[in-house]
């Protein structure tokens, strides 16, 4: 099993712990991750697609050609990157006129979008390609944790173009969490957005953080040990957000934030250091002590 590994921005440049976790977990699972040398920002729906869709599509197409050159499907840990690459891939496969226009630009750099690959979120890879049964067999250390699962938005929506999961009552991530021995705890407004996307974190940090605050309060009220997200940007929002909210309002949540690959790594018995669990802004100690 091999994939072109799309890094994006937040993971390699702000949360390299997630990158380390993914590379180490992939080794255990026998997944080969091929680097997409020279890839750029995806670019995101909030801050490039919102400004100029043609630029968004051209840059996304360039990234897709890098995966095509590796002759394998692309995967990513960020739901924003996933949304962009998945959408751009579909548009360019289906719209011949658009493809021609983009290829005219890419041609100058010896690149051509051919439409030969698919884009998969890492969570999809684990759920469908690796499979829940295989993950179950590989668990060395069942996790006795109460987990608040946060799906985020772009993994599931628009449902017409995503994984086929319901956007109101999805099961995929809850199942992935529970197969590791942990318990997914229901909480109020579980499907609500973290508030980071759409360019909001940069333009209206107060509104953005207010959304994160509401979610954190709902999670805390459900008495969970940690938050698990499938997305590096949601991860940043909840992890860094707790520090910001403490400074701003004096509220503390002490809720460790883990990307799903980090949680999986713990269940596979990997060293927390190798999973970047000491690189978060909000300490992961409470769960490491509990395990």
């Amino acid at each position, binding site marked *: 099993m091999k994939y072109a590994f799309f*890094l994006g*921005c*937040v993971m*390699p*440049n*702000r949360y*390299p*712990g997630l*990158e*380390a976790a993914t*590379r180490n977990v992939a080794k255990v699972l026998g997944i080969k991750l091929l*680097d*997409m*040398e*020279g*890839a*750029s*920002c995806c670019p*995101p*729906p*909030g*801050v*490039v*697609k*919102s*400004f*100029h*869709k*043609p*630029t968004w599509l*051209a*840059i996304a197409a*360039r990234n897709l050609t890098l995966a095509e050159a590796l002759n394998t499907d692309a995967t990513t840990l960020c739901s924003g990157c996933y949304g962009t690459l998945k959408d751009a891939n579909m548009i360019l496969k289906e719209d011949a006129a658009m493809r021609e226009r983009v290829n005219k*630009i890419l041609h*100058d*750099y010896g690149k051509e979008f051919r439409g030969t690959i698919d884009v998969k979120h890492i969570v999809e890879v684990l759920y469908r390609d690796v499979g829940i049964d295989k993950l179950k067999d590989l668990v060395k250390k069942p996790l006795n944790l109460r987990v608040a699962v946060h799906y985020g*938005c*772009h993994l599931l*929506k*628009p*449902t017409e173009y995503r994984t086929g999961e319901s*956007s109101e009552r999805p099961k995929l991530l809850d199942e992935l969490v529970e197969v590791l021995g942990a318990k997914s705890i229901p909480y109020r407004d579980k499907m*609500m*957005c973290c*508030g*980071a*996307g*759409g*360019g*909001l974190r*940069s*333009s*209206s940090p107060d*509104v*953005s953080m*207010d*959304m994160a605050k509401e979610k954190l309060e709902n999670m805390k009220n459900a008495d969970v040990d940690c938050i698990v997200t499938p997305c590096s940007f949601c991860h940043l929002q909840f992890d860094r957000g707790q520090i910001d909210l403490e400074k701003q309002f004096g509220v503390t949540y002490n809720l460790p934030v883990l990307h799903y690959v980090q949680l999986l790594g713990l269940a596979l018995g990997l060293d927390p250091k*190798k999973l*970047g669990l000491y*690189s978060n802004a909000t300490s992961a100690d409470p769960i490491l002590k509990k395990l």
Partner: protein
Amino acid sequence: MAKPQRNIIRLDELDMDFAEAVAKAGGEKINLCIQCGTCTASCPSGRRTAFRTRQLIRRAMLGFRDEVLSDEDLWLCTTCFTCLERCPRGVDPTDVILALRNMAVEAGHMLDQHKRVAGYFVKYGHAVPLNEENRKRRTSLGLEEIPPTTHKHKKALDEVQDIVKKMGFDKLICFKWEKGEK
């Protein structure tokens, strides 16, 4: 006694072709809207701000071009797609909002914070570029100090910047090449 306030909408001040222009810019199904308000009721941003998706769409359909494009509330959507999933008419409100944002930027309405982030993207190929702290963190985690992206490959960055210029994105965001920033 205070004079009664009258809000008179003059038809000649409205852009009657605006909804059509929004449709062409990517909000294809704007005209299907029946103003039911499911979008506003589903909006996590509207729950805490004055942002009202239904109102935005109504104003766009009526032709309030300048009011819609200059309204900073347009930038309060997190693109969570909840309204798009729930809209009973399949208007795809998120696509309408993205189309309006593209039109707003073209009309010169872009927030400074967004120009800054877009500037990072143009300068580094990354909207969130690497910093010193994370170079060290990468090394301590056993990763390459510089990720194998446009950060590592100058030729790749040149390519991205060349595409950006060809698309006119640098001009759109007022990027100053000589200063290397917006």
